[in-house]
């Protein structure tokens, strides 16, 4: 078990966005979080990562309570995230963008062997995967909407995190490129990284995820393996359609 949500509640004014949501995510897995637009998926990410306070319930990570922590404290636990609307530095080059999060000033890091060359290599390798190595020295402002998303996704792989939360990684991404990204996610997962992924692309969800949680109207509608979820009548009705 990695994350545990216990009766988590989040209200926006009179609207209950998360309504006593409880679940556990399996350790070491790629977990998918699906559900209709407005079902509370991004809100769940926001409370999990300390971007929004909750109105009730508890969140545990490896048996420690993490609700109430600030976003940077959550990152220090090894949990990082991407956003639906990308946030890249437009005036930095693609390569510089990728190296920003790897810079730290902590004494403990200074005592360790500097690992910048390795990071540089990794950044170049990642830019190759997303087909953007030709522009690595160009400012990020030249990128299209989809390319900025790819850069941000790549950025999340640059950090030595234990868990990566991805908010709709396939939205706006060419399907052929997506399969290369899926390979990368699987490889990172085999190395021990866990993933929690919000996704509407069922091909990505069903091929990539080991475990799926379905939200609907702020409540957990179902949870299980991809094959079970695909057969679930309630999920079909609320989300997948005919």
């Amino acid at each position, binding site marked *: 078990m990695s994350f545990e949500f216990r009766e988590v509640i989040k209200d926006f004014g009179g*609207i209950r966005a998360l309504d006593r949501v409880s679940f556990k995510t399996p350790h070491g897995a790629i977990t998918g979080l699906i*559900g*209709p*637009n*407005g079902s509370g998926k991004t809100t769940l990410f926001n409370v999990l990562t300390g971007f929004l306070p909750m109105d009730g319930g508890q969140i545990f990570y490896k048996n420690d309570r993490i609700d109430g922590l600030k976003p940077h404290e959550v990152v220090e636990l090894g949990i990082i995230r991407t956003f*639906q*609307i990308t946030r890249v530095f437009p005036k930095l080059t693609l390569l510089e963008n990728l190296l920003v999060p790897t810079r730290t000033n902590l004494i403990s890091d200074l005592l360790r062997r500097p690992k910048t060359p390795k990071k540089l290599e990794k950044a170049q390798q990642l830019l190759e995967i*997303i*087909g*953007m190595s030709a522009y690595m020295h*160009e400012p990020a402002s*030249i*990128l*299209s*909407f*989809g*390319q900025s*998303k*790819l850069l941000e996704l790549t950025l999340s792989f640059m950090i030595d995190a234990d868990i990566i939360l991805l908010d*709709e990684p396939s*939205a*706006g*991404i*060419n*399907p*052929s*490129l*997506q*399969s*290369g990204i899926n*390979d990368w996610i699987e490889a990172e997962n085999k190395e021990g990284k866990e993933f929690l992924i919000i996704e*509407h*692309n*069922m*091909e990505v969800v069903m091929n990539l995820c080991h475990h799926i949680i379905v939200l609907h109207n702020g409540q957990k509608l179902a949870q299980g393996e991809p094959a079970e979820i695909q057969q679930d009548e309630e999920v079909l009705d609320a*989300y*997948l*359609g005919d």
Partner: protein
Amino acid sequence: MPTSETEILSLNDIKASYTKGVKILRSVSLEITQKKIACLIGPNGAGKSTVLKAIMGLANVESGSVKLNGENITGMKPHEVMHRGIAYVPQGRTVFPEMTVWENLRMGGFIIKDKQLVEDRIQEIFNIFPILYDYRNQKAYALSGGEQQMVEMGRVLILDPSFMLIDEPSIGLAPKVRRLVFEKIISLNREKRIGVLMVEQNAIQGLEASDLGYVLDMGRVRFSGPGVDLLRDERIHKLYLGGGGKDYRKARFETDT
């Protein structure tokens, strides 16, 4: 500007950029009519959004021409292009979040002086998207992704366009809602005679909804033809629709010769 004739929008060997030295479109020619839905697909950074922006006067067209019924509209300002009956729905959620649905729709018609005409057209839009009538007094931010997409489409329909350019209408939408949005686009085309040029990364569904498909890669049109034909083409499937696995990049450059 509805006429009895079928209107034609064409791009002829367009080269375009935003900043000097970074060429986005190297050579793009395409033609759409009011009777058709055309879909632009291709890798990220291929120039798909720039095609729409080149038509709207939002990208710097260096050479080539954009023509509407033979009239050269290249380099016109966005509002002049809109006045000629070309509407544009940009990428990402672009509703005015703090305005109600009704206010958002009225914003779409702010260049129309005849206020009664705006009100009449809003009623028509409520007929097309009944859910927007139900939510007319709700602030737009409170709507779901699919509903916001309908507000964005409705907002440009106020101008009674002959053409609608729409950038990734299905992005971020749940599977069930995604189908609904494509159905709405088809019915706008069939019933309201609005020619549609859309960009889609949900490429298979985008092509299925379209009469014509254009595959853009590195600023050029690589393949074009009826949507169904492109879907059946093995090369396209492999290179652009996710059928090629991780070797797709290699394969893409091989066809480049």
